[in-house]
Every structure is written in structure tokens, then in C-alpha cells.
């Protein structure tokens, strides 16, 4: 892999380019960071989907889609997520590398231009977005919200975070509430768009074989018109648990879901996040982890039981699906594994296999266009930006003592149970 080149196109607008000729495709990924807040989460989320729907040049979904289709099925996708206390709007443009165009089209140049159309020339008039476009995207986003409830695993995991972080910014949903989405107007969208161009932190990453300077130049020129005042990227981390929370919700489903949330008292930019991550993988990140081996394989209590660490927020979540009659047994078995880690009962085999698993998946990110482009944007809030190789060195250097220390800091915060039954 070739090294990443970084240039700042404007205040808080970073352009990353990675030259790579191994792929059949190219990608231009834009991550737009805004502070997550109750007042703006809905309008920002909606804005992202309205922007990728169409633009002035391709003023409806069909025209936009056919333009992309004729460029050999190129894609423009929008998605919205939370990255700790920031809201991240992702606009992702990708298509075939120029050399595979049957009729010699300059696909990469067309797509760079299209990104600018999407960001800077949306279908706006008199300080408003188009009403019809907004209504269609409102419907889509409300359906997405509803379908999170359709998937009980997703639902249970979100209820845990809502309960655990009820008094924190992080407790806000990626798209705010249903009522807030419904209340957004076309003027609100316009203001949010202008606010985004003025204040958001932009990370734009180009991966591929074509010349990225063309794309950088076009984007830079578009930002020239804008008086930038970029926001800081920041997050609040909670270091204490005042009161353990237990919430049980009943539902008419077959399998109960158990979600256990811990505070890790360790988050970016602290260097100990590396040890905490390794600790969570030893506990429940692989098919040779403590949870998989003991709770699933030995006790046959579940099909899945895994741990996930959110290093930006300092939270670790363990989740599992169990028979209602086994909820208590599973809870006990899981917490016993956590105690075991705290007491230092970790074998060299467990440590080494977790290290190897992390290294294997980390080195693999350079082999996909998406992996490469996300690798850097996922570190935008870190103290240091590592290459995959550097990240592996850090993982390798972690000692057992550091892992045990990370485990000792774990504080049980919230248990959420979705209890199956009539």
C-alpha cells in the first residue's frame, strides 16, 4: 500500500489521497462531522439523505440514478451514524476505475464533479429544499427507524445505550426522534446545509489509480466561497458509575436478549485504549474468546455471546440471545468471565490468539477500497493517526499486566433484558 497524502483544502477540510492500482474501482468518501445534539440530529440526518437523492444538475432520483447507471453502475450513497458525541454524515461515491470503461469514459473525473454537485449544488430555491424530495426521504428515514425495532438484536442493543447514556449526548439517536424528523421543514434543511458547509469538519478520502489532484482542486475551489468556522471534535467520557441500572422489557418473541454495559474508564486519546481493546477481544471478540468458549461451547447457553468496545466513548457492551429460563444463568456465567479477567486468569494462548486475530483483520483493511478509505476517517478523533502496521505494533506490545489493569477498571453500569414471553 502506498502512503496516505494529506492536505488541508480549507479550515477543517482535510483531503486524503491513497494511490492504489490494485483495484477495479475507485472511491471518494466524504465524512462530515457535526456535534450530536438534540436540536439538530434529525435535520442533519435528513439532510444527508436529501443531498444524495438528487441535485440541481440531476434533479430527480431517476435522472441521478440513470447518470450513475450509465457510468457502469457507479454509486452515491448516504448514511448517518454516531461517532461518540459527534454525528457523522457519510457521502460515499464510487465506480469502476477509468481503464475498465467500455467506451473510454473518464469515470473518476465525472464522479469528482458529481460529489461537488451533491455537496454544493443541491436542488434549492429561495432558501428552501424541494418539498417532495424532503417528504420522500422523511418516509425512508422513518421506515429505517421502525425497522430497527423489527430486528430485536439491534433494538435491544439500542435500548441499552439509551438507558445507560440517558443523561449524555451519546444517548441521542443517530437521527433524533420520530417527532423531530416529522417536524423538519424545507427551510430548516436549507439552514442545516449552510451550517454544514460552514462549520462541519470534513474528511474526504480518495482511493484509486486516477489522479486525485483534479478532485482536490475542484473541491478546494468550491470551498473558497465559504467563510469557514469549523467545529472541534470532542467527546465527554464518563468515568464513574453512580448507580447500577437494571431494566427489563417484556415482548412476545421466542428468544430473550441480554445486554450488559460497562464503563471502561479508558477512552481516546489515552494510550491504554489499545490494552482495553485487546481485553475486550480476549473476553468476547473471537471464536476462541472466553465468552464463546465458556458460555456457548461449555454451557450451551447461547448461539452468540460477544463483547464490543467503543474506544471513543469508553464503553464496553456484552450481548447474547438466550432462553428466558436461562437469563440468570447466562448473566452469572458472563459476569464470572469478567471477574476471571480482573483476577488475572488469562492464559498466554488467549492473549496471543486475540492479538493474532486483531492483526489479521487490521492488515486486511488495506485490501478493500472501503477498508482503506474508512481506516483513516475512523481515527479522526484519535491522538495519533496510525497506519495498519503501526496499529499492529501497538497491539503486539501490550502486556498481560496491562490487560488485567484494563479489566480491573471495568464498571458494570447497566443491564438491559428483553424478556421473551406472552
Amino acid at each position, binding site marked *: 500500500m502506498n502512503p496516505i497524502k494529506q492536505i488541508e483544502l480549507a479550515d477543517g477540510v482535510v483531503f486524503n489521497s491513497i494511490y492504489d492500482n490494485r483495484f477495479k474501482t475507485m472511491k471518494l468518501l466524504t465524512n462530515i462531522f457535526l456535534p450530536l445534539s438534540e436540536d439538530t440530529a434529525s435535520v442533519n440526518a435528513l439532510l444527508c439523505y436529501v443531498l444524495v437523492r438528487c441535485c440541481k444538475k440531476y434533479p430527480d432520483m431517476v435522472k441521478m440514478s440513470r447518470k450513475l447507471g450509465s457510468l457502469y453502475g457507479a454509486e452515491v450513497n448516504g448514511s448517518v451514524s454516531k461517532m461518540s458525541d459527534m454525528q457523522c454524515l457519510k457521502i460515499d461515491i464510487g465506480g469502476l476505475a477509468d481503464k475498465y470503461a467500455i467506451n473510454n469514459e473518464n469515470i473518476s473525473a465525472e464522479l469528482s464533479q458529481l460529489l461537488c454537485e451533491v455537496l454544493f449544488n443541491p436542488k434549492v430555491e429561495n432558501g428552501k429544499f424541494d418539498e417532495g424530495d424532503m417528504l420522500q426521504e422523511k418516509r425512508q428515514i422513518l421506515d429505517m427507524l421502525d425497522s430497527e425495532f423489527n430486528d430485536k438484536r439491534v433494538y435491544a442493543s439500542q435500548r441499552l445505550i439509551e438507558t445507560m447514556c440517558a443523561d449524555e449526548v451519546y444517548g441521542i439517536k443517530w437521527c433524533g426522534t420520530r417527532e423531530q424528523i416529522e417536524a423538519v421543514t424545507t427551510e430548516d434543511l436549507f439552514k442545516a446545509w449552510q451550517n454544514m458547509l460552514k462549520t462541519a469538519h470534513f474528511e474526504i478520502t480518495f482511493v484509486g489509480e486516477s489522479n486525485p489532484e483534479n478532485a482536490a482542486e475542484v473541491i478546494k475551489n468550491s470551498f473558497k466561497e465559504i467563510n469557514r468556522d469549523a467545529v472541534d471534535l470532542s467527546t465527554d467520557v464518563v468515568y464513574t458509575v453512580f448507580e447500577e441500572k437494571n431494566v427489563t422489557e417484556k415482548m412476545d418473541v421466542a428468544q430473550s436478549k441480554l445486554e450488559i454495559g460497562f464503563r471502561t474508564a479508558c477512552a481516546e486519546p489515552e494510550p491504554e485504549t489499545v490494552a482495553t481493546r485487546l481485553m475486550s477481544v480476549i473476553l468476547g471478540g473471537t471464536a476462541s474468546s472466553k465468552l464463546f468458549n465458556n458460555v456457548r461451547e461449555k454451557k450451551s447457553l447461547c448461539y452468540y455471546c460477544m463483547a464490543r468496545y467503543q474506544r471513543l466513548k469508553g464503553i464496553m457492551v456484552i450481548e447474547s440471545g438466550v432462553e428466558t429460563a436461562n437469563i440468570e444463568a447466562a448473566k452469572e456465567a458472563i459476569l464470572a468471565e469478567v471477574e476471571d479477567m480482573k483476577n488475572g486468569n488469562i492464559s498466554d494462548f488467549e492473549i496471543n490468539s486475540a492479538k493474532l486475530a486483531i492483526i489479521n483483520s487490521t492488515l486486511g483493511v*488495506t485490501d478493500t477500497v472501503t477498508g482503506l478509505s474508512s481506516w483513516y476517517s475512523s481515527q479522526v478523533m484519535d491522538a495519533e493517526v496510525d497506519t495498519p502496521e503501526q496499529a499492529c505494533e501497538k497491539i503486539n506490545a501490550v502486556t498481560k499486566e496491562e490487560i488485567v489493569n484494563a479489566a480491573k477498571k471495568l464498571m458494570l453500569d447497566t443491564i438491559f433484558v428483553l424478556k421473551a414471553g406472552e
Partner: protein
Amino acid sequence: MSKVSEIKSARTGDMYYKIEHDSGLTIYLYPKRDYNSKYAIFGTRYGSINNAFSLDGGEVKKVPDGIAHYLEHKMFECEDGDAFVKYAKTGANANAYTSFNKTCYLFSCTENFDESFEILLDFVQSPYFTEETVAKEQGIIGQEIRMYDDSAEWVVMFNLLKNMYKSHPVQIDIAGTVESIAEITPELLYDCYYTFYNLNNMVLCVSGDLSVEDILKTADKKLKKCEKHTIENYFENEPYEVCSHYVEQSFPISVPLFNFGYKGKSHKVSQKETAEIDIIMTVLTSPSFELYNKLDKAELINQTFDAEYFDGEGYNSVIFSGESRSPKEAGEMIKDYIENLKQNGISPDDFEIAKREVYGDLLSSLNNVEAISNALVDAHFNDTDIFGFIDDVAGCTSDDVNNRLKKMFDTDNTTLSVILPVKE
């Protein structure tokens, strides 16, 4: 000596090797220079639908539902320990899955490929089942089945299949039921294993920065020669007609889900036919075309809308799926539109855009070692070639596609499956 041949594609600039190994196994290697990732997948032509079979003209055996999937779980347990524990020493990310017509074991890694490759070849060739280990799996798979019981997407599909197929086993849940898996014994597992896990019935596909020598040094050491046998699969006679046109069920969900299926006449689909079908399916599902937009404007679908050409031994159908506030209206609109399209044909403009979308998708999939190897498995089991398929798509004409379209959809042979939210 094993026979090695090279398959090249001028269009993509790529090539792969086909190795007919002495052991009876066909191996494919798709080199990806300068990639860190390596991926290997070892598959057998054996899935949940193969529940009645005979070996070399012997008696027909009927086995419990879900046994192929159960066998997949139990293969990881070896006499000298668990395969996952062995992989833990190499760092590979290993997994397996069972579908309607195949079972596959796979791993991806960046380091220690040789060691992981040995583990894969070893454990898939070393069945080890005891009363005790078989009993232990009941709880784990029981929870897997319960998890799918709660998945509205899974249930809406199987309700559709049950409504579409009267006797073909494609309508039976891949994992079986808690009751059917209780009948599984070590003897039955061995029977299935020795019938279907014969190297002549299997395929091994590898992709990454590797050479034929890298593959053969392990393959020659580990693969145990298999005699070729004749496997016969039995399926009860399946009527042409669907069982009924509509089924619904209630679930604790907020957005209704639907599957809308056209049952077709069962036949083996050729590579050229698949290319034509892919273009047709794109016209019917992509936002670039009229059907998606009609449905979207009428608020009958959202972005989850999709369709699949669903075929295998003894079944061929097309299944539309998605979330919809009015699934019945969505189904009607799809039906009317397709009837019309059959009459009027796909326009030259639409044809060209759809073809480009399919072509772009296929080329993009060659970026990824996993996608490549998975495609090679399917191509081998379907007697097709991944490069020839790209050429077939590029060479498709509008006439081919319109002729195919006329034969594909029988409006009188459809069924709609719906999951509705529970009424408060």
C-alpha cells in the same frame, strides 16, 4: 500428477488456475498480487435440500431435517480438539455456513496462511462424532433456531417458500426444528458425511498473493484420495402451481415486510440465461428504472426493496422483497408492470443502462478475495465460468433479454407472504 490449467480474461486483465488434483478434488487459485488478505473456501455440494439420497444405486436414505447444518457445526470438533482453537493459534478468521444446496468452510487471514490451510484441509476430512458431542450441540443450535424464529425477514421468506412449494425440501428451514434435530445421531452424521464429503463432490477455492506451488505443497500432503461414487438425490414430485396465493402472520414489528414470488418451471439455467436474467432483475429493482420509481412514488416500497432469482435443483423462482405499508398493492403493481413489460419489451436505453450496471457490479466484485472465491465455488457447482459470464453480460443483446423476459414470469403462479405488526 495433478492437471493445472490457466483461465485468462482479456477484459479484466485477470487470470486464475484450475487444478484437477489427483485426490479427486478440483481446486481453483485466483492470484491477487500485492494483497495481504488471503481467503480459502472448501465446499461440498450438499445442503438442506439433500435430505433423501442414495449412494451407488443403494437404498434411498431419508435423513432428519437440519442435518446438513448440524453436520457443519460438528465438523469443527476433531478427535484432537476444536478447529476454532487450532485457528486461534494462526489468527485466521474462520467460519462455515450451510445453505439450501451447499455447505462451505472458510477462513481469511493475512499471516500464517499455510498453517491455517492445513487446519482447513485436515478438519474437513476428519469426521469425529460421539453421542456426547452430538448431544452438546442441541442447546447451541436450539438457540440459533430460536434467534431465526424471531427474525421477521427469515419467517417471511420461509412462509413464502412453504406457500410456493408443496413437497420440495427448499421450503424446510435450513437448521430444521428443535424436534427434528433431536433425532440426529452420530451414525446418521457419518452416513451423510461419507456420502457428500467425497472430494469428487467438493471444491476448494483460494484467492490471495499465492502461487500454484503454495497450494499444492499443502494439498499434496493433506488431501486423501477419494474413489468416485454416484450420488443420487431424490425429490418428491413438485406440482407446477403454487400451493396458495397469500399468507400472512403477525409479529411484534413496526414496518410490515413482504416477499412476493413467481414460481417458475424447474430447469437447469445456463450461463447465458443467467446473464440475461441479471439484466432483467436490474431493470425490475434499480432506481434507474420505471418499476422502482412507480412503487416509490406510490409509497409502496422503501430502499429495502430488492429481488432475487432463486434457483437450484428442482426449484426456480423470482422473489421480490422489502418493507411496505401496503404489501398487497405493491404485489399488484409489480404484477401489472411485468405483464406490461412483457408486451412492450425493455427499451434500448433501459437495456443499455441495466447492462452497464450489471457489468460494473461484476467487475467490482473482482476486488475482493472473498467475493472472488465465493463466486468460483458457485461457478464450479453450476458448471459456469466467472470470466465467461462477464463476457456473456457484455455480449447480451436487447433481443436476447426481451425474449427471456417473455418466458420468465407466469402471472397466474405467484404468491405473496406478508408479516404484519401485531395489533395493539
